[in-house]
């Protein structure tokens, strides 16, 4: 199982490099920290913007892509005890729906994987490293996509009512990453 998480991290590092290159080459009008969130292509139920960053896809009837829905659930299990419901922040951790307006996908992955400390005389804010926690590490894109939708006001403070199905490829990747046996 440890190996699986490491695989996932390796993939994240590759993505980080790719994202950095893309951003350097880009220079387009940014809508959030990763650029224009419009989905231009999809692969196994995951949508990507034109720079290749994961993004959300919300249909006119409110149906959300699987990642947005899954991210909603994972966020409210793993993240909300500090960052508050719906990415709204708490009395001691920032509102991620605002943070993602300026934070890139690459920075998001690296902070979630490695953690971050902001300890000074006025405050002690510490985010742990989640790289070894499969509940988070295996669902980084899900959480990112959900928060990206929140940051762009594409999704309100609600549980998504309707969502696309989980793709077989997603199930296989999740099981492999989480070490789940069937």
């Amino acid at each position: 199982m440890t190996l699986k998480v490491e695989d996932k991290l390796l993939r994240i590092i590759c993505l980080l490099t790719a994202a950095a290159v893309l951003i350097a080459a880009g220079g387009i009008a940014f809508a959030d920290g990763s650029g224009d969130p419009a989905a231009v292509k999809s692969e196994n139920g995951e949508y990507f913007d034109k720079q290749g960053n994961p993004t959300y896809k919300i249909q006119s009837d409110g149906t959300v892509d699987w990642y947005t829905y899954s991210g909603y659930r994972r966020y409210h299990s793993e993240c909300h005890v500090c960052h508050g419901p719906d990415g709204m922040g708490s009395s001691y951790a920032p509102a991620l729906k605002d943070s993602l307006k300026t934070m890139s996908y690459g920075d998001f992955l690296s902070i979630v994987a490695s953690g971050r400390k902001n300890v000074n005389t006025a405050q002690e804010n510490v985010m742990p490293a989640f790289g070894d926690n499969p509940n988070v590490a295996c669902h980084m894109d899900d959480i990112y996509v959900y928060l990206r939708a929140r940051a762009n006001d594409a999704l309100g403070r609600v549980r998504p009512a309707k969502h696309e199905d989980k793709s077989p490829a997603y199930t296989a990747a999740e099981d492999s990453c989480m070490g789940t046996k069937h």
Partner: protein
Amino acid sequence: MRKVLLATGLGAIAALAAGSAVANDELTRMSQNPAEWVMPAGDYAGTRYSKLKQINASNVGKLQVAWTFSTGVLRGHEGGPLIIGNTMYVHTPFPNKVYALDLSNENKILWSYEPKQDPNVIPVMCCDTVNRGLAYSDGKIFLHQADDKLVALNAKNGNVEWTAVNGDPSKGQTGTSAPLVIKDKVLVGTSGGEFGVQCSMTAYSVKDGKQVWKAYSEGPDEQILVDPEKTTALGKPVGKDSSLKTWEGDQWKIGGGCTWGWISYDPSLDLVYYGSGNPSTWNPRQRPGDNKWSMTVFARNPDTGMAKWVYQMTPHDEWDYDGVNEMILTDQSIDGRPRKLLTHFDRNGLAYTLDRVNGELLVAEKFDPKVNWTTGVDMNKNSPTYGRPKVVDQYSTDKQGEDHNVKGICPAALGTKDEQPAAYSPETQLFYVPTNHVCMDYEPFKVSYTAGQPYVGATLSMYPPPGETHMGNFIAWDGKTGKIVWSNKEQFSVWSGALATAGGVVFYGTLEGYLKAVDAKTGKELYKFKTPSGIIGNVTTYEHNGKQYIAVLSGVGGWAGIGLAAGLTDPTAGLGAVGGYAALKNYTSLGGVLTVFALPQQ
């Protein structure tokens, strides 16, 4: 010098030989002097009641701020100060500073202490870096640090006398609770129910910090300190492996049952009382069985830790209804018969009154009429489900299953009441209870365990009960009959510990930051003052130079700072209703301040 040391040593040995009751006698005597406040709840019975009555129902409206003190810390401030002689001891959340203030010299800082702790402990504390206060005995102040170390400080100068390591924060074990000194031992619990910790209550020697006993909430009999024949549950012996039989495989090793609430003690019965928290994970499907003894009231011998009786309130928890809230010990008559009672307002929305001698269940009633997950507790002694709550299938997150969002469960995971302790007045024979009035949607799903990482496994959203806009009530409760006597609505959860006084006044704080005084008989509001930040601390009273003071810590945070800072989700928003519910951040901001009140000079 050596002679002096030797003499001191001999003195200590003599004190020890005189019997282990020395410290107990000192504390019991001190707790009977209403001028002081020498333990977290004011007395061993956990009543939070004071005999002081200079401030009373007819003059409390004239209350004024006498002095204030900034703690210099921004996180959530739970608990309240101790007053020992002329000194007040104030604690803070992480970094767990302690201040000794000289009440006889314009509240000057006599000494302050700040431990060096690894900041990595911060994110393994579930819901803010709170600390619920200090304990005192034998010239020492006991501090339970965030990193789960118990430290004894010299009450005169703040020097560290000893340090005991109670748990390992890298595995998610942290310290938030206030210790309690009983005789020559200091008892301390552990937090970490959201990190899969096998939690325990531990007793250390007041003298040198050596561990005397450790009683886990779940595990083999020798770890949980029960006697299969002599320890009883609802009058019957618990039998062999009473905990192990209720877990699948080794799950008890990451079973939670944390002990982060309050501790009470009855010197005449020589029994200590406390509750255990939720079983880990929040996904009930992943841990079949009753998960004993999570969610349990324990009565233990303070010298050995051996349990005399246990009562599990919420077998196989499906909603995170920790059983850690305070146990208030009262002597009252039921059906004309004087009884030694224990009353407990549980997160699950039921208020329990038990006979504290033997753990007999006398009353179990809802203390918020909105509670809907159960139709009540089976009180039939001949029933196979005697003492168990009857769970409504519609609200059973286990029955509905993983990946199913169960809607409209009342109360929410933060309970009809959380750690904020209630008070009891022997004059009115009423309990004064700060409550939450919040419901939730709860969706369990599969999670895997990693040491030191959150082990939650459920998504939830919280909101006021349908059709209502207030999220808290402050109620008066009759524990003998299990009935609400009066109830005051509050816009937000009441997350502050109450204080009852002989002046016929009851005090509590609100999340907006008000200190409020109400009439003990009627609940009528007599006074309010808005302190610098939201109040999640407990109200304390003391007397100095003949004057009565009321003290409270403000400093919003804690779980209230998570769920309410942003405002709760509006369950009807998706249906097109207008507006959401008010966000706490529109009313108050961070900052730890002690505010002390008194009547104006005549």
